[in-house]
């Protein structure tokens, strides 16, 4: 069995969607991860929300682990468990310890990304009443399923105690179950390619291409430290399964639509907000990092250039081949992409939509316009929660409208951001 390394398992489509051992994957920071999980729990309540998040984690982790174990030549249960735990650490999700058989058992987590980051970010402000590590729990269940050759959904997981609730560690129980979930359509590279339009060039390509390639090289070497965390650019970064984000978002939307349709718009707004959270924290953190200065040089206060940098980061993080289709300073910015992790998932699982559903992309585009025009980058501001509030509270002077959507049958998705 060969030593596990993320880089050879990672592949970008020419249209810049990223895959890890054939599973759609992206890089996202803890601010985004926590905000999205919180939104799901707000929509469904902590019990149903936690259950959905655990199942989504189990589903996509199961597919990932099957593929990685096969590539690594891990055939025996101990080998497969070893691969699972090391992969979890390398992806920046923390450290898991498993003590389980096909009939169940327990997992213990230390520095699990969600619980640890929640405690770091919110622990001094609010008390958490429910565990935070549904992703770690679902992953642990999937690890046992794959290690012992069980079917997807054969193992349930439930986090009993969590560092976010001020417990010393995260303890997860694992139980075998006979109630399997209905199989859902698989989403891999072929499915993504089927839902991808033609790649185009936009403005600033001479800037975007080389930086994107440099960032891809840089992130190829990024992996969890001894704690299993990736602490970089002022955030905790994870390599994460796009299917997890998509399933929890779209299943929550479906549930809200069925139970309280008047709340669907608010949920969509908060999913868009997750795009603001990502761009402000991750993109902002990268721009202000010494690594960025080493790769690109000192920042300048030029909105066009900042948008070009955002396109490069979006591509390197695996979000798709984002291009600046049009840009008029202080007036208009058009982001176009032949694919997105949201549209790939939606087209594969639901088909054609009546209206655009790429909420993350919509929020990200608007936040990029705001950051490009309103942040004084050369002053190197601190990206604090207070600064975020200052930039985004009470609405922003921009409006984002998705004018074309792959989920609606268009060849590309396009967000037009205009000054209000």
């Amino acid at each position, binding site marked *: 069995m060969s030593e596990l390394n993320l880089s050879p398992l990672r592949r970008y489509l020419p249209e810049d969607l990223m895959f890890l051992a054939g599973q759609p994957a992206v890089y996202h920071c803890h601010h985004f991860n926590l*905000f999205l999980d*919180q*939104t799901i729990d*707000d*929509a469904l*309540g*902590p019990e149903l929300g936690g259950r959905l998040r655990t199942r989504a984690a189990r589903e996509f982790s199961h597919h990932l682990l099957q593929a990685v174990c096969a590539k690594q030549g891990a055939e025996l249960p101990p080998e497969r468990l070893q691969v699972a735990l090391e992969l979890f650490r390398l992806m920046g999700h923390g450290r898991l310890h498993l003590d389980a058989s096909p009939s169940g058992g327990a997992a213990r987590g230390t520095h699990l990304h969600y619980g640890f980051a929640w405690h770091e*970010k*919110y622990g001094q*402000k*609010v*008390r*958490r*009443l429910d565990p935070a590590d549904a992703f770690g729990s679902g992953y642990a269940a999937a690890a046992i399923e794959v290690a012992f050759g069980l079917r997807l959904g054969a193992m349930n997981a439930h986090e009993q105690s969590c560092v976010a609730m001020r417990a010393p560690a995260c303890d997860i129980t694992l139980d075998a179950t006979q109630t399997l979930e209905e199989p859902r359509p698989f989403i891999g590279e072929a499915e993504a390619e089927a839902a991808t339009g033609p790649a185009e060039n936009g403005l600033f390509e001479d800037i975007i291409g080389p930086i994107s390639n440099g960032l891809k090289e840089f992130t190829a070497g990024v992996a969890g430290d001894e704690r299993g965390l990736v602490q970089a650019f002022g955030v905790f970064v994870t390599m994460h399964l796009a299917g997890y984000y998509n399933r929890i978002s779209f299943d929550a939307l479906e549930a*809200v639509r069925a139970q*309280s349709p*008047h*709340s669907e718009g*608010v*949920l969509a*707004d*908060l999913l868009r*907000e997750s795009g603001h959270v990502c761009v402000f924290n991750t993109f902002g953190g990268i721009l202000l990092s010494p690594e960025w200065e080493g790769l690109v040089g000192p920042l300048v206060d030029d909105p066009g250039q900042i948008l070009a940098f955002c396109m490069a980061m979006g591509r390197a993080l695996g979000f798709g081949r984002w291009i600046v289709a049009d840009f008029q300073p202080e007036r208009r910015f058009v982001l176009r992409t032949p694919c997105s992790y949201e549209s790939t998932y939606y087209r594969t699982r639901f088909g054609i939509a009546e209206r655009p559903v790429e909420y993350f992309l919509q929020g990200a585009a608007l936040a990029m316009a705001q950051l490009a025009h309103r942040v004084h980058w050369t002053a190197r501001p601190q990206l604090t*929660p207070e600064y*975020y*509030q200052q930039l*985004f*509270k*009470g609405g922003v002077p921009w409006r984002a409208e998705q004018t074309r959507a792959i989920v609606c049958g268009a060849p590309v998705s396009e967000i037009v951001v205009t000054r209000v």
Partner: protein
Amino acid sequence: MSDRNLERVVEEIPSLRAVFITAMPDCLLYDSWLKADETWTSEEVASYFGDLIRANREGLKALRAWSSEMQVTIESTDVLLVLREVSADFVVSFAFARNAPLGMVRLHVKRALALLDELLPKIRPEERPRALRISEFLTRYAPDAHTALKRAALRSGVPVELLERPEHLSVQQVEQFERSVCAILGLDTLSL
């Protein structure tokens, strides 16, 4: 309180940097005095001090150790704070320079409070709708405050447009709203 009354009471107190008077139970700024070179925002400070006294009162009651003479002293790196309830209607907070002698501070606070007790109105301020106070409490303490109302709307099932005008909520909606705020803040009850 007339513009000059508070100033007359406190302006001669040595090492005093500011005084904030918070009207309870809404934790709104009633009056303040700041030394000329201070840059604090009285409105922001006052509400937190009101909440602090209220939490302190509830904590002491739980310990069966509460008395109306309760006074809170905070010694931070930069400032020496003394907070005190004046009747059930007002909390007066004195901010002194950190190096002010504690004995001198207590003496001046006692004298100033005696004067303020005479000057502050005895009529209980009209209590505002509970839903409005819940909304303000949420905005004050929720992380990512600008999204807090939307989060409460999702949790409670009460449309966000209604939560934006909380004074018009029905009794049932106020209960749903309050439960959602408790959940967001991780609290069993709201101390309002």
